[in-house]
C-alpha cells in the first residue's frame, strides 16, 4: 500500500499496484477482460469504417458519380455499421455489464466478509484499524473497483482507436512526411510545441487538483483551525440513518439547538470563509476543466486545419478532407489523453491497494493440526495456567498471572466489577485471542495445538452483545442454511419461545426484523435473548457460557433466564457472568475477579465469610439496600 495517494512513487510500484488490481478482477472473473476488449475492438472498427465509407461517398458526390455508383458504399456503410454495433451491444449486454456488476459486488462483499474471516484478534489490532481508516479515505472521491473498469476500457478503446485512425490516416501521413515543404514542417513543429505545452499544463493542473482533493484536511490546514471549523454533518447523518435518534431528546431538553447548528452547517459555512475548500477546489478543477476543454477542441481544430491545407494544396481529393481531419484528431487526442488515462488507472490502483491488502491480511494465530477428541461423556478439562493478556494496542493487562481450573459438569459463576477481566477470560477460553504469557490447556494439551474449528466446537456462548441476523428464524438458531427442524423447534421451546413459534404462520422460515423482508417479524429484546439462547442450545457444545446478556432486564427476569438456562444445559459445564450476585446464587462455585486476577473462589458462604474479600464488598454494595 502506498504511503498516501498524492506522493510520487516509482514506476515499478505503480505497475505492481495496477497488476494487483487487474489481477483481482481477472481472478474474480477470468473472461471479463477478454470480452470487454473484444467489444471495444468492434466499436473502434465500426468507427473507422464509418469514417472511410462516408469519405468514399463524399468523394463520389464531388466527382458527380451517378446514383448507382453510390449505392455500394452506402449499403456497405449501413450494413457493416449495423452488424458491428449489434455485435457490440450483444457483448456489452450479455457479458460485459453483468460481469462488471458482479465483480463490483464481489469486491465490496469480499471486503465486508473479511471482517468475519480473519482472526478475531486482528480486528482490533492497530494494523487492521489503520488499514481500515486508510481504506475509508481511499474510497472517498473514487468509485472503488468501478474506476478500474472505466479506466481500463478507456485505455483499451483509446489504443484501438489509435490503431484504426493510424491505418486510415496513413495516406495523409505519407504526404505530410514527403511534402518537403518547410512551411509545413514549421507549422507542424509549432503544433507539436503547443500540444506539448498544453499536455504539460493539463498534467500540472491535474496534479494540483488531485493533490488538494486527496490530501487529508488535517494536513492541509493548521490543526487548531481544522478542529475549530470541523463539521459533523456526516456524523449525524450516519447516526440518523442507522436509526440512532436518541441524541435528539438531549438536544430538546438541554436547549442544544444552537450548539448543533454551530457544529454542522454553521462550521461548514464559517469554515468556508476561513479555510475555503469549495471555492479552492472549484478553482483548481475549473482550471483543469478549462485546459482539458481547450486542448480537446484544439486537436479537432488542428485536424481540420492540417487536412484543409493539404486538400487545398491538392494533395488529395476534397472528399477525403473530413476523413483525414477525423483521423488526425483521433490520433492527437489518443496520444494526449493516454497519459491522463494511465495516470487515472494508476491512481485507481493505488486507491484499491489498501482494500486488496486487507483482503490479503493473513491470520496471526498459530493454528495447530491436532484433532479434538470427541467424547460422548464430555470429559473435557480446561485449565488456565499463569495466563497474562493485554488487548492489542493496550498497555494495561486485562488478565495478569491468571490461573483457573474448570470443573467438568459443574456450574461456575464469575463475578467482579466492570473491567475486572470476566469477558476477557471467556474470549481467551474460546480462543478469540491468544494470551501473551502462560497457557490454556485442554485435557493437558495447549489449546493452540488443536485444530481451531474443532476446538471452537466445544463452546456455546451467549455474549452480552450477541447478534441475530435478519434472516429466517430457523437459520438463526442453526447458524447455518441447513436446519434440523425438529431440533430447532425443540430448543426454541426450551428457551421459552414455543408459543410464539406456534403463532408464526411461516414457522422457522419466518424472517427476523424487516431489513430484507417486509414480512419479517419484529422481536423484542427479551425474545431476541431467547433466540440467542436457543442458538446456544442447538449447538449442543460441552461448554456453555452466559456473559450477562440480560443487563437491561429487571432482576427477576434475569434470574429466571439464568436458572432456566441452567436447567436446560443438563450435565454440561456452564459458566455464568453477571453483575447481580443474586443471579448466580444457584452456583456453588463462584470465582471473583478483580483487576485481571482471580482473587477468590468458593461457595457463597465461604466467600462471604471473608469480610475483607472483594466478594463481601460487592455483596455488601447490593445487600445494604435490603437490610
Amino acid at each position, binding site marked *: 500500500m502506498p504511503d498516501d495517494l498524492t506522493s510520487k512513487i516509482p514506476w515499478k510500484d505503480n505497475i505492481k499496484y495496477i497488476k494487483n488490481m487487474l489481477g483481482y478482477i481477472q481472478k474474480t472473473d477470468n473472461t471479463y477482460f477478454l470480452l470487454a476488449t473484444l467489444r471495444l475492438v468492434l466499436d473502434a472498427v465500426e468507427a473507422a469504417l464509418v469514417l472511410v465509407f462516408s469519405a468514399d461517398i463524399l468523394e463520389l458526390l464531388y466527382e458527380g458519380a451517378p446514383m448507382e455508383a453510390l449505392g455500394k458504399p452506402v449499403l456497405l456503410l449501413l450494413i457493416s455499421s449495423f452488424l458491428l454495433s449489434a455485435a457490440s451491444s450483444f457483448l456489452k449486454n450479455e457479458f460485459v455489464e453483468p460481469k462488471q456488476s458482479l465483480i463490483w459486488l464481489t469486491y465490496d462483499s469480499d471486503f465486508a466478509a473479511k471482517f468475519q474471516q480473519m482472526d478475531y484478534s486482528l480486528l482490533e489490532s492497530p494494523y487492521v484499524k489503520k488499514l481500515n481508516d486508510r481504506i475509508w479515505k481511499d474510497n472517498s472521491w473514487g468509485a472503488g473497483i468501478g474506476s478500474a473498469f472505466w479506466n481500463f476500457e478507456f485505455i483499451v478503446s483509446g489504443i484501438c482507436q489509435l490503431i484504426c485512425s493510424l491505418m486510415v490516416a496513413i495516406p495523409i501521413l505519407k504526404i505530410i512526411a514527403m511534402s518537403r515543404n518547410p512551411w509545413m514542417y514549421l507549422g507542424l513543429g509549432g503544433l507539436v510545441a503547443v500540444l506539448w505545452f498544453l499536455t504539460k499544463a493539463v498534467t500540472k493542473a491535474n496534479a494540483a487538483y488531485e493533490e488538494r482533493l486527496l490530501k*487529508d484536511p488535517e494536513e492541509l490546514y493548521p490543526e487548531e483551525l481544522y478542529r475549530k471549523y470541523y463539521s459533523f454533518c456526516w456524523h449525524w447523518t450516519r447516526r*440518523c440513518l442507522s436509526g440512532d435518534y436518541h441524541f435528539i431528546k438531549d438536544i430538546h431538553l438541554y436547549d442544544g439547538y444552537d450548539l448543533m447548528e454551530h457544529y454542522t452547517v454553521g462550521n461548514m459555512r464559517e469554515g468556508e470563509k476561513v479555510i475555503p475548500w469549495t471555492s479552492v477546489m472549484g478553482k483548481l478543477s475549473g482550471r483543469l476543466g*478549462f485546459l482539458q476543454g481547450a486542448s480537446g477542441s484544439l486537436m479537432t481544430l488542428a485536424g481540420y486545419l492540417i487536412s484543409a491545407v493539404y486538400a487545398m494544396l491538392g494533395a488529395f481529393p476534397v472528399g477525403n478532407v473530413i476523413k483525414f481531419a477525423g483521423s488526425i484528431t483521433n490520433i492527437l487526442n489518443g496520444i494526449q489523453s493516454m497519459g491522463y488515462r494511465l495516470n487515472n488507472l494508476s491512481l485507481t490502483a493505488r486507491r484499491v491497494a489498501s482494500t486488496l491488502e486487507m483482503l490479503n491480511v493473513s491470520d496471526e494465530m498459530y493454528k495447530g493440526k491436532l484433532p479434538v477428541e470427541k467424547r460422548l461423556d464430555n470429559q473435557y478439562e480446561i485449565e488456565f495456567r499463569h495466563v497474562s493478556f493485554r488487548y492489542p494496542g493496550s498497555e494495561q493487562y486485562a488478565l495478569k498471572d491468571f490461573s483457573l481450573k474448570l470443573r467438568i459438569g459443574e456450574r461456575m459463576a464469575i463475578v467482579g466489577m466492570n473491567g475486572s477481566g470476566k469477558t476477557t477470560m471467556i474470549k481467551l477460553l474460546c480462543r478469540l485471542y491468544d494470551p501473551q504469557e502462560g497457557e490454556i490447556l485442554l485435557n493437558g494439551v495447549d489449546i493452540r495445538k488443536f485444530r481451531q474449528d474443532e476446538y471452537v466446537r466445544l463452546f456455546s456462548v451467549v455474549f452480552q452483545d450477541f447478534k441475530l441476523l435478519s434472516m429466517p428464524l430457523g437459520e438463526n438458531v442453526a447458524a447455518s442454511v441447513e436446519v434440523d427442524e425438529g431440533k430447532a423447534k425443540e430448543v426454541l421451546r426450551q428457551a421459552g419461545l414455543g408459543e410464539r413459534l406456534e403463532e408464526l404462520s411461516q414457522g422457522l422460515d419466518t424472517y427476523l426484523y424487516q431489513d430484507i423482508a417486509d414480512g419479517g417479524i419484529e422481536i423484542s429484546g427479551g425474545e431476541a435473548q431467547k433466540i440467542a439462547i436457543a442458538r446456544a442450545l442447538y449447538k449442543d457444545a460441552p461448554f456453555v457460557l452466559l456473559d450477562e446478556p440480560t443487563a437491561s432486564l429487571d432482576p427477576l427476569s434475569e434470574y429466571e433466564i439464568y436458572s432456566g438456562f441452567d436447567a436446560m444445559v443438563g450435565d454440561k459445564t456452564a459458566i455464568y457472568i453477571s453483575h447481580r450476585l443474586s443471579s448466580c446464587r444457584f452456583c456453588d462455585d463462584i470465582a471473583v475477579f478483580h483487576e485481571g486476577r482471580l482473587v477468590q473462589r468458593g461457595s457463597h458462604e465461604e466467600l462471604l465469610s471473608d469480610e475483607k474479600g472483594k466478594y463481601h464488598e460487592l455483596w455488601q454494595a447490593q445487600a445494604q439496600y435490603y437490610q
Partner: protein
Amino acid sequence: MGKKETKETKPHLKETKLYLKEIKLYLFKKSKEPNRAKSPGKTGDMPSYPLLSNIRYYYRLLYREFPRVAIYHAITTFGRILLPFIGILMPGIVLSQVSEGGLFQGLAVIALAGGAALIAESLVSQADSKIYFYENTFRNILLGEAVLKQTKCLYKYVEYGDQKRITRRAYQSMQGGDWAVSYKMLDDPRWLLVNVVSFFLYSSVLGTLKPWLVALLLGLSLVNYGILRMKNRWQLALRDEFAQSDREIHYLNRAMKDTAMAKDVRIFAMNDWLMAFRGKLFGHRLKLEKRNQRRMFATDLLQLLLSLCRNGFAYAYLIYACLQGDISAAEFLVYFGAITGFSGFVTNIVDTYSGLKLANADASCMRFHMELPEIGEEGEVPEALYQTPAEIEFRDVSFSYGEKMEEEPSAEEGRSGGEESSTEEKRPKVYEHFNLVIRPGEKVALLGINGAGKTTLVKLLCGLYEPDEGQILINGVDIAGVPKRALYDLFSVVFQEATIFPYPVGCNLSLRKPGETDEERAWAALREAGLEETFRERGIGMDSFMTKASFKDGVELSGGQAQRFFLARALYKDGNILILDEPTSALDPIAESEIYEEYVKISRGRTSLFISHRLASTKFSDRILFLEDGRIKEEGTHEELMALGGSYAHMFEIQSRYYTASGEEQNAAAQMSI
C-alpha cells in the same frame, strides 16, 4: 469540512460525460436503488410535490447558498446547446472553404469557427468542473440542515412511523455520492432544457431544407419514443426486484462489517452460513442482471434498426438532393449530421425526463422533511411555571402510540442492523384516565417491569409526547399551552440512552456553543458529580473533544464515568425538576451504589423522579409508584408497601432474600421463582 466523506464519487467530470451511458446504467442499478427499499403498496403514503416546484425548490436553496453558481449554470447550458451545433456545422464549413475559398481566407474562416468552438468548449468544461464542487458542498449543507430540522421539529415526528419512513428515505436519497438526489434535481433539468432547445433548433435547420423532412423525422422520433417507453417500462418492472436485491446485498455487507457480530460468527462458525447466503444472493442477482440486459439488448437492436432505416433514408434523400443540385456536398454533411443528431435529442429527453420523475419521489420526501413544523418559541409563559420546588399533576391523562406511532423504543439487545420497526398495528392505550399528583419537593420512585410505560410517563411530562386527552399541570399551569422551549427549560433529565456528543467537554455539559459555557460552573458540576479529579488527572479540559468519532485523541469515558458525566450535565442545567431514567443498568454493584449516593445528594430541595429496575433505589424516595399496565397499582413509602404485602413487597422479598437469608432459604427462593 468533512467533505471527503462523499463516497462512491464518479471520476472527474470529463469521464462522466464520455461514459454517460454507463453512469446511467448505474443510476438505475447501482446507486439509487439500494436505498429505495420499499414495497410498492406503501408508495401511497409518501408525500409528493409537482416536479417543477421541486426543481425550483432545489435551485432556490442552491442559489441562496452559492449565488455565483447561477453564472456557471448559464454558461454550461448555453454552451451545451451551442457546441453540438458548431460540431455539426464545422465539417460543412471546412468542406466548403476547401472546395471554394482561397487558401488564407479559407484557413482564417476555419480557424475562426474552430476558435469559437475552442472558447466555448473550454468555458463549458471549466464551468462544469466548478459546478460539481459547489453542488457537492451544497449537498453536505443540505444534509446538515436535514439533521438540524430533525432536532428542531416536534419530537413526535422523530418517532412517528410514517414520518420516520419519509425522513429515512430523505436521508437515503442524499447518500450514494454523486448519485444523490440533489445532483439529479439540479443537473438533469438543465440537461433536459439543453436537449429540448436543441431539438427545436435542429428542427428549424432541417425545416429550411424541407419542412416535410422535419415531419418525417418527428414521425421517426415518435417510433423511437415508443421504443424508449418500452425500455423504461421494462426497467421499471424490474426496479423493485433490483431494489430488493440491493437491499439484501447491502444488508449482508453491513452485517458482515459489523464487528460486534464477529464473536458470534466465530463461535458458531457462521461464516459458511453467510457465504452460502451470499452465493444465493449473487446467483439471483446475476439472473436479474441478465434478464434486464437481454431486454436492453432487444431495445438496442430495435433502435439500431430504426437508425439503419433513418440513415438509409437520409443517405438516399440527401444524395438524391445533392445530385439534383439542390444542396452542395458541404450542406450534405450538415444535414446528415442534423438528422442523426435529432434522434439523440429525443432519446435524451425521454431518458432524462423519466429519470427526473423517479427522482422526484425522493426529492419530495426530502422536501417534506425540510418543511416539518418546528417546536414553538413564541407564546406567553406564566410566571407560576418556574416556582420552586415544582408541583406536578397528571389529570385524567390518556395516551396511546396511536396507529402511526411506534411503541416506546426499548433498549433492544441483539438487534442486528440499525433499522427500526415500522409496526402499524393499532396499539392499545398506554395510559387511560391516569391521575397523579407529585407534591413540591417530593422524591418519587417509578417502578414496574419492562414495558410498564415508565419512560412514556417521563416523555409526557417533559412535553416530548402530548396526551390524547387530559392535562398535565406544572404548578397549576397546563403545559399544553406552554411553548416547548420554555417547558423544556424546566427539566434536568438523564435519559436511559443519554448521548455524549463528539464536541468539547464544555459544550457537552452546557450544550451551548463554544465559548458560551460558564467554565467555573462546569467544573463545579463535574466536582459535584465526582468527576473533577478524574478529568484533572487525565488532563482533560473544557476544550477537549469527546468520543473518538472525529479526533483520535477524543476523550472516552467508561460506563460509570459517563453516568456521572450526565449527572454533571443535569447539575449544570440546574433545572427545577430532576428526572433520572434508569441510569445504572450496565454498572457493577459498587459503581451503581456510588451513583445512587450522588443522585440522592443532588435531588435535595427539588421535585424529582427516579426510574429504576433496582428495587433498592426506592429506599431513598418519599413515595414509590408501582406501575402496571398504565395504572398505579401500588403507591406509598417503602414501609407502607411492604406492609401492604402486594406486588412490590413480593418483588422486594424475593430479591432481598438472597442478601439476608441463609443458604437453605436461598435455594427455596430459587425454586419458588423459576
